[in-house]
């Protein structure tokens, strides 16, 4: 297909051509950035919490004033373990997607000069570690002597596990095992590295997505903690077990108030935690859908106008021997050229839009891979949108050329 006559024809319809180009450019810019936002959200929503959420449930108590931890935990754990189907129960200070217990800044030296970041400190009793199924990928497991009593939040000197993500942040490219860090006067030594373990609020803490897995696990004795528990059961039994756990707990510790919102299977807590992200995701998808539809309708509108305007020329071309295929191809090629111009402009706009997003929303740089994906989609959309008017053009019979208007 000869492109030259198409270009010169477009030259006579500069405004309409420019409009289609701009429509596609705008759509391309929004599309690329929207795709990027979607993939960011999906990345966050797919985060690996590091535990088997399908077989774990949280139970939380509140308002247990003046309670004795050893006494309450003893009653609570006994009640939980007595539920048919429960394979384990333990005392925790927090769980992924639950309420935060303690974010604290750490330093890599005793004097507190070298700041290391703000991880979340998990404190787990011995049975909690087992119930959660946490095992270090590197280093050693906890031994009974590691579980110390902590009167105020954490023990003063502890052997801990940290996640691979936090280890890589603190000591990039080096082994974390045996390394030390401090939180004020508290001293920690890394005994093991966990492959994954999300903080309670992944993606919503001070450092955003980067720190989603900055977790420290500190072993403490069961009587150092009060009020939050985790149970494990077979995934098929878990909904029933979670229900039973709520009831058992209310009966076993009547002096406390059961936290209904936090006493749920971990998979429910996760679903709730990401509810807003899911809503945003649907919003983005519908914006993309509506935008593509609008762009397609715009192309259909302008192309139909062109066809109507050129009816006579098309008739003449047909009379001079152009086949229907030739006419069809003419419009498809014309649209391809316009779309290409729009896409080139759109990529520049997409990049500029991304710079704005980076500035105002602290987003990452748009990966270049999104640009060709957006381009292909818009090419296809243009071809599809122009198909109808082009077929109508191709159907114009040569005899139209002989009519006067």
């Amino acid at each position, binding site marked *: 297909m000869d492109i030259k006559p198409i270009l010169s024809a477009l030259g006579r319809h500069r405004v309409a051509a420019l409009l289609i180009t701009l429509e596609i450019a705008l759509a391309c810019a929004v599309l690329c950035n*929207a795709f990027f936002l979607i993939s960011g959200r999906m990345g966050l929503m797919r985060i690996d919490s590091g535990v088997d959420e399908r077989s774990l449930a949280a139970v939380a108590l509140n308002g247990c004033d003046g309670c004795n931890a050893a006494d309450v935990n003893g009653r609570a754990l006994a009640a939980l373990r007595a539920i048919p189907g429960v394979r384990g129960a333990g005392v925790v200070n927090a769980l992924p997607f639950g309420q935060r217990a303690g974010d604290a800044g750490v330093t890599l030296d005793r004097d507190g000069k070298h700041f290391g970041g703000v991880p979340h400190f998990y404190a787990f009793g011995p049975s909690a570690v087992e119930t959660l199924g946490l095992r270090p990928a590197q280093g050693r497991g906890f031994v009974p002597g590691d579980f110390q009593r902590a009167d105020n939040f954490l023990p003063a000197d502890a052997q801990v596990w940290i996640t691979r993500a936090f280890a890589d942040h603190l000591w990039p490219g080096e082994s974390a095992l045996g390394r030390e860090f401090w939180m004020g006067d508290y001293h920690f030594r890394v005994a093991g590295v966990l492959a994954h373990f999300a903080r309670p609020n992944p993606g919503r803490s001070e450092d955003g997505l980067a720190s989603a897995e900055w977790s420290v696990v500190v072993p403490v004795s069961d009587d150092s903690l009060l009020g939050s528990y985790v149970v494990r059961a077979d995934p098929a039994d878990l909904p029933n077990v979670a229900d039973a756990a709520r009831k058992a707990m209310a009966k076993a510790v009547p002096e406390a108030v059961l936290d209904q919102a936090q006493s749920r299977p971990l998979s429910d807590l996760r679903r709730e935690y990401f509810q807003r992200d899911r809503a945003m995701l649907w919003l983005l998808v519908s914006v993309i859908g509506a935008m593509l539809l609008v762009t397609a309708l715009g192309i259909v509108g302008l192309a139909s106008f062109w066809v109507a305007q050129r009816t006579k020329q098309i008739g003449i071309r047909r009379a001079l021997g152009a086949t229907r295929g030739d006419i069809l191809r003419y419009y498809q090629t014309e649209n391809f050229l316009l779309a290409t111009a729009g896409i080139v402009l759109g990529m520049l706009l997409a990049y500029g839009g991304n710079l704005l997003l980076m500035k105002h*929303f602290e987003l990452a740089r748009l990966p270049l891979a999104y640009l060709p994906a957006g381009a292909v989609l818009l090419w296809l959309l243009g071809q599809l949108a122009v198909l109808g008017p082009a077929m109508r053009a191709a159907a114009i019979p040569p005899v139209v050329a002989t009519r006067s208007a």
Partner: protein
Amino acid sequence: MFRYHLQLALHSLRRNKMLTALMVLLIAVGIGASMTTLTVMHLLSGDPLPGKSQRIFHPQVDPMPDEKMREFPPDMMDYTSAVDLWRARRADRQALVVDSGIKLRAPDTGMPPLMTTMLSASADFFPMFDVPFAYGSGWSEQDDAKRARVAVISADLNDKLFGGGNSVGRILRVRDADVRIVGVLKPWRPSPVYYMVAGGRFSAGDTAGYYGKTEDVFVPFFTGLEINDGHFAQFTCWALPETPGHLQNAPCVWLQLWVQLDTQAKVADYRRFLAGYAAEQKAAGRIRHAANARMPDLMEWLDFNGVVPRDVKLQTWLALAFLAICLFNTVGLLLAKFMRRGGEIGVRRALGATRGTIFGHCLVEAGLIGLIGGTLGLCLTLVGLWAIRQQPIEYADLAHLDLTMLAATFALAVAASLLAGLFPASRASRVAPAIQLKTH
């Protein structure tokens, strides 16, 4: 003339129904999407205390012991600084606030205990923030001083516990203490709950929580510290407090102080007083960076905390980009529509219609499309806001269209469609009469 334009426009709109419907739809979805998000934006970024916010200030000093001075003082205050400043009574009104979780019982209702939040605040809190009462009133400064066991409760809690009746005089059990209800609020929904806003810069844009409900129970400041001792949360500490949840004289910031200053002179005066206090504390060795004291007013403070959630801003930008795309397409379609009528325009020009008439006629047609599109867009906006109200977000119940936004919807729709019509109209009005007559 305008009526004639209108008749012509209606006639022309009816002639090509598909194209008209398409344009109306484009304007409608563009307006629907952008007005939904703009309404939310408008609700979340508005002044929560109109007419008064510029007289409300949030004094801050920096008690942190770091060697290097921080860029900003911490978002909350330590006990000593906050109480010293409050006791100095140098402002027209001053209110200390801190919230904490409580276990609450209403012994004579027979309802099971519940966990909720309590605001410990000094007496000026109610008049200072124009808090509306349904029954009774707040407490006095004497009640503050003598740590009276009195409480004000929210309309929500009053409905839940006492069926909405006048519950003044009834007793609540907060943790292990009895407090007597002296006031019941009318429904009060500040957006955001501005007096508790802090820490926005550390929230990575996730600030929807600022738009939740107010506390259910309000008690005098020192009464609250007493009856809920051991259950207060620090904003941040530079060493672990000795007794968790007991933060008086702990190395922590955890309180907020608000002051009302009615004249510019008093504002300047208070700024000097605040700087003087910090300097004096530095001399006494308690504060290290006396220069790091600030006093933003309420709106500055909300702005500093970036209270409008990042997702809301992102949605607004997306919707505006979408509106731009819709408008571009409308321009294209209008152009197609007007140019297709080249023949008719040529005839009218030949019969003596001026360019201005043609231009005006085209614009009226565009405006009419905008008006119809705007009406439909308004319906879509209402649907959009309804959809937001179904979402599990803190500000969901706030998403309603007010009169301003209703007017703005139509203004935006008509302005947008006129804008879209400008270029096609000017093209159409330039159609030369003779050529059109010849070729068609």
